[in-house]
């Protein structure tokens, strides 16, 4: 197994764990945690391909990962703000109970 293959497998496993968490948990915050894990798995792929790619000095993969980290931080802030807002409205963060679009 080449080093790149190992990193890709770890990233795939982490992505599947995040996807499973986002699809199976009831708590909205835990769903956001699953989404964060998926974003991180994609970042690991980008960095691994940057490291073992033909032109690491061009910094493309690293820059992509750094920008993805910044966008993920913005996503987390807005997502958790939405969860808090919904909690204040519905008194729950259980996604199975949030089955109305009308307040």
């Amino acid at each position, binding site marked *: *197994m*080449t080093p790149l293959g*190992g*990193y*890709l*497998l*770890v990233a*795939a*496993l*982490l*992505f*599947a*764990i*995040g*996807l*499973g*968490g986002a*699809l*199976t*948990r*009831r*708590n909205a*915050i*835990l769903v956001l*945690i699953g989404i*964060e*894990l998926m974003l*991180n798995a994609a*970042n*690991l792929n980008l*960095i*691994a391909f*940057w*490291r*073992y790619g*033909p032109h*690491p*000095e061009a910094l493309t993969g*690293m*820059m992509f990962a*750094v*920008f993805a*980290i*910044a*966008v*993920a*931080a*913005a*996503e*987390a*802030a*807005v997502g*958790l*703000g939405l*969860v*808090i*807002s919904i909690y204040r409205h519905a008194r729950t*963060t*259980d996604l*199975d109970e949030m089955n109305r679009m009308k307040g």
Partner: protein
Amino acid sequence: MSIVFWILSFLTVLGGLAAVTLRNTVHCALALTVAFAGLGMLYLQLDAQFAGFAQILVYIGAVAILVVFAILLTRGSDTPKDGIFSRTWFAGTAIAAAVFAVLGWAVIESVDALPHETAAPAVTVNQIGNALLGRYVLPLEIVALLLTAALVGAVMVAMHEKGESK
């Protein structure tokens, strides 16, 4: 494959698995921090020091703390009486397993075509700074705008509504 890589990946995967399966939500947030730290160290292992330290600063320093705040503000640490997994947990697990099977199969099938060990790229922070303010200056400005909009938006969304009791 070095032993350090296996230890770090084991730590990261274990942290991720604990973050989505533990019952107590606060424990989930702590396990998530372990997974983020493991990923940051994997980046360092990949000679991406800048990305590794950015990961530690942004994810452990900001996102994990934000998650803990959200959990404490929403009484999310109470374990729900009818289980922590949703009614459709079986379908979710099956989809996740299928996705992992496809991704793992693709990686293992193409492992011969992947590049082998190469010399570590000598990238200094000076080069990264030049790239950020040279070739990538437009994305940098857009990210700055996005972060400002997200900050204002998060405050607006989470703010108390007018006329609301309490």
